[in-house]
Structures are given as structure tokens and as C-alpha cells.
């Protein structure tokens, strides 16, 4: 490019400055602004959430209470308590339970769809999985509330059905289609030459998957799991409606819990702007932002590492 431009300059051929040239420059500038908009938004999300919560989190919040105490009593007088341990445990237990379901099911389906299913069957399965991923989270919460709840009470003979089990299953069903899609992409990215080489040596399809495809797609699969964890971690409406929403350090899957996201969603409406409670909710927001940011960053590094190695 540079050499060409120099040559043109020597020969006296310059860009003609006409309307098309001007429009080209304007378009380039506008499009560049659009291009960096995602960066601007991520930074402003952090700034605006931090603006309301960071000062409180750094100076007024008792950190050992926040991370060590299960007592979340933001409105108690005279001394409100902001212990987020139970909320973190709630989020962790529901997400963990969801992953117990979603990881085997999504990896299994991804392998089946990508390696075993062929032709129409594969197309239909992919479409079904894509449609499952589209069901809104408030509908999932509603399903947990009205279908899973009585089912759990009946099957396990427990008094309350809005539990870790309920929210975990709902969240697992929600996260699995997305994880399946990402895992399938990772499997598809393994070059066919690898498979053909193994088959030429007489390996059965399962041997090819077990010893060739899975090891080379390992990082992409881990990224899929990570993104699933991130999704479960940040899920709000479904967890709010299906988990029972009780502040509780859980000891069994039949305990009700309350998640970090659900706490913000349910309490934000009751707080006065600028109050300690309000700032504490934004502090939870900062925590959520930082954790999901880290998870996404890790997943990105894993996927990029995979691409880098192949190039």
C-alpha cells in the first residue's frame, strides 16, 4: 500500500478530492466510532455501576462482614448488616448444580450432533437446540414456579419445591443449549484431516472421537463450560423465581437459597437512591461484573490460544 502510494505521488497521480472521496472519509469516521462503541459501552457499564457503588464498597463497607457473614439485613435499624456470604453460596450452589446437569448433557449432545448425527437428523437437532436457547429466562422462571415446584414436592415428598434442585435444573436446561452450540463449534473446528488419518488406521468412530477429536478440541470445550458457568452466574429472573429466594447457607439440594442477581432484582425497587442499601446493591453489581468479566476473559484466552496454535 505504502509503496503504491509513493509511486502514485511520484507520477503525480493523487486521490481526486470529490464528493465520493469526502463521503468515503465521513463513512470511515462514523464506522470507526461504531466499531469502538462496544469498548465504550463496557467501560461505561463499569463506570456507572462503580460510580454508585465503588466508594461505598471501598470505604464504608465492612469487607470481612461482606465476605464472611451470611447476615444480609440491609434495612435493619440501627445497624444494617451487609453479609453477602449466603448470597454467594446461593449463587454458587445453584450454578454448581446447574453445571452438574448441563456439562454432561451439553458435551454429550455436542459430540452426538457433531460426530454421529448426519444429514437431516443433524440439521433438525441443531435447529431444536437453537430454539431451546431462545426461550426467555422469565418463562424458565415461570416453569420452575408452576411446573417444577409441584413436581419436586410430589416426587421427593418435601414441603417446599422452590429449592437449589429446582433452580439448578432450570438453569441447567437453560445453559445446556448454549453450551452445546459452543462445544459443537469447538468440535467442528477440528480439521477433518485428523479424523481421516485416524480412520485410515482402522480406528472406530468412537476411538477417533476419544483419542483424536476430544483432545484437540479440549480448550474449546473448556471455554464452552466456562461460558456456561458465566451464564448461570449472571442469570437473574429464572433463579429469582425458582430458588425460593430465602437467605440461607444451604446444606442440601432441598434448601431454598437466594442468589446475588436475584437480590439486586428484588430489592432495587425498595431502596432510596443514595442510601447505604442502594449502594450495597451496586456493590453486588460490581462483584457480578468483575466475576463475569474474568470468566469471559479466560474463555476468550482459551479459544484464542487454540486458534493461535493452529495458525
Amino acid at each position: 500500500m505504502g509503496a503504491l502510494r509513493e509511486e502514485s505521488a511520484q507520477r503525480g497521480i493523487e486521490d481526486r478530492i470529490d464528493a465520493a472521496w469526502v463521503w468515503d472519509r465521513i463513512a470511515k469516521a462514523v464506522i470507526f466510532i461504531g466499531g469502538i462503541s462496544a469498548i465504550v459501552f463496557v467501560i461505561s457499564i463499569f463506570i456507572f455501576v462503580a460510580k454508585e457503588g465503588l466508594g461505598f464498597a471501598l470505604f464504608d463497607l465492612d469487607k470481612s462482614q461482606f465476605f464472611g457473614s451470611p447476615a444480609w439485613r440491609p434495612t435493619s435499624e440501627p445497624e444494617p448488616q451487609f453479609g453477602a456470604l449466603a448470597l454467594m453460596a446461593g449463587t454458587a450452589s445453584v450454578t454448581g448444580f446447574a453445571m452438574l446437569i448441563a456439562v454432561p448433557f451439553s458435551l454429550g449432545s455436542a459430540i452426538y450432533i457433531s460426530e454421529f448425527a448426519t444429514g437431516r437428523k443433524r440439521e433438525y437437532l441443531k435447529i431444536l437446540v437453537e430454539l431451546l436457547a431462545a426461550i426467555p429466562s422469565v418463562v424458565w422462571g415461570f416453569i420452575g414456579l408452576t411446573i417444577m415446584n409441584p413436581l419436586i414436592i410430589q416426587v421427593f415428598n418435601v414441603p417446599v419445591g422452590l429449592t437449589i434442585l429446582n433452580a439448578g435444573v432450570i438453569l441447567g436446561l437453560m445453559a445446556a443449549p448454549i453450551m452445546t452450540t459452543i462445544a459443537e463449534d469447538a468440535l467442528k473446528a477440528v480439521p477433518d484431516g485428523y479424523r481421516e488419518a485416524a480412520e485410515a488406521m482402522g480406528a472406530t468412530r468412537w476411538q477417533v472421537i476419544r483419542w483424536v477429536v476430544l483432545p484437540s478440541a479440549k480448550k474449546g470445550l473448556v471455554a464452552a463450560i466456562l461460558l456456561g458457568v458465566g451464564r448461570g452466574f449472571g442469570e437473574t429472573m429464572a433463579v429469582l423465581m425458582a430458588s425460593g429466594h430465602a437467605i440461607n447457607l444451604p446444606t442440601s439440594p432441598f434448601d431454598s437459597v437466594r442468589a446475588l442477581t436475584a437480590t439486586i432484582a428484588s430489592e432495587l425497587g425498595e431502596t432510596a437512591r443514595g442510601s447505604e442499601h442502594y449502594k450495597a446493591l451496586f456493590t453486588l453489581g460490581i462483584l457480578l461484573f468483575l466475576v463475569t468479566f474474568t470468566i469471559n476473559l479466560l474463555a476468550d484466552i482459551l479459544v484464542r490460544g487454540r486458534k493461535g496454535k493452529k495458525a
Partner: protein
Amino acid sequence: MSVKQHQITSFEAQPLDLKNRRNERLVRFFLGWVTMLLILPVLLILGVLIYKGSPALSWAFFTEMPRDGMTAGGILPALIGTLWLVGVALTAAVPLGIAAAIYLSEYAPDNMLTRIINLAIINLAGVPSIVHALFGLGAFVIFLKPLTGGTCILAASLTLAIMTLPVVIVSTRESLQAVPRQFREACWSLGATRWQTIRKVVLPNSISGILTGVIIQVSMTVGETAPIMYTGAVTYVAFLPESFTDETMALSLHLYNLAFVMQDVPESLPFGVALALVGVVLTLNSASIAFRMHLRGKKKW
């Protein structure tokens, strides 16, 4: 496959071959069931939604205002409100998303800035919806209050727009990159500027791919609840929204209120809303998929 060939060339299948083949069949059967088990419960759930929700659906359900403290009547204001939210969100997100995609596909060099943009897009998609809600509250409701006047359709829609921006960017970028490079080179060689090439050659050839992405974005916007709860959507307003500075009801929030917040709502009502919501979302997504498959069959290159 290899085993078959052994038989044809009159090699005997060894015990090891038989064992391997048995293993493969077992795994295939097992994984097939895993896939079924992933899909079946959801189909069952959809069945229950249709069974319990369809009695509530009627013409009046979609065209009447709620009555008796929202325990009876229709969902008209929620439906209109959702249309408003989606409309305003699209107006904001689609041009911006397309610009970002054009930058990444047509202009961006392979450098640090591009890496950071891509990382930002992934993060924007990964930030929890309730954090988007906090951002919307802080930025559009409080900080930009002179512009928006507090909680209103505009604030809620902008929050939704930012949240769904990655969907438009990613799908648009994909369809732009699917346009063969030769198309651009042919255009450049005729002396067209970069922008002329994009406008006259690249965009027309990828417009249908962009549309499928927009449809997916609409479906996502329809279903989101948390981001609009504190930015513009409210439990009940007696009027239909008239401008984007009004507060509004929304389908998704309506379902949340009927099912979770309010007491003594007859069961068929939330089931009806849930069915309507799922119906809209799945129809949009099916349309997008059908559109995409139609395109794949029609592609000229």
C-alpha cells in the same frame, strides 16, 4: 467403516475389532439418548404451556385492557409496550451494530485495538442482565435524566439496545465476511472508494444475513425482563404509551408480576401470557432459521 472393509476383503474380524465396534455402538446409543434427554423435557414443558395456556388465548385476550386489578381481562398494554420497547431498541442498536460489524469486517487491521473490541463484544454479551439494569438505571435514568426524564421507554430501550448489540454485531459481521473478496476487488478496480464498495456491493449482498440477525435480536429483546424492570417498564399503567418518554407495561414483566409478585391470579392468565411470549419468541427464531436456510439454498457464489 473399517470393519466392513475387512469383511469384503475376506479378512476375519478379530475379537478386538468386535469389541471396538460394540463400544462404538454403545457410545452412539448412549449419546443419542443424552441428546434426546436434553430436548425431551423442554418439549414436554412446551406441551404443558400449550395445554394450560391455550384456553386463555382469545382475540379479546390480546385486544383488551387488564381488569379487576390485573386478575382478569387482556394484555393489550403489555403487548403495545413490548412493541414500543423493541422498536426503539432496534432503532438504536441496528445502525450502531451494523457500523461496528462493518468496521470489524471491512476496516479493522489485525491489531491490539481489534482484539480489545472483540473482547469487549464478548463481555457485553456476558455481563449479567441485572448489571445491565444497574447500568441503565445509573446512566439513562439518573445521569441522563434531563434527556429522558427518568424511567421511560427510551431509557429501557437503550438499556436493551446495549445488551443486544453483540447479537447484531456478530451476525452482521458473519454475513459481511461471507461476501467473497473478489466482489470487493472487482469494485475497487473500477475506481470505487471503500465506502462506495461497501454500500453498493457488500451490503446488498449481505442484507438478508443481517436481517436474520436482527430477527434474533428482536426475539431476545422481547423476552428480557431484568434490564427493563427499573428503567422504564412498570407493573401497571392505565394508558397505552403515547411517546418514548412514557412508562409502559411489557409482556415479560407482566408474566413476572402475574406469576411471582401478585397473589390470587387465576392460573390460566400467567399461562396465557407465558404461551404468548414463548409463541412470539419461537416464531421469530423459526422465521430467522427458515430465512437462513432459504438463503443457503439460493446463494449465488
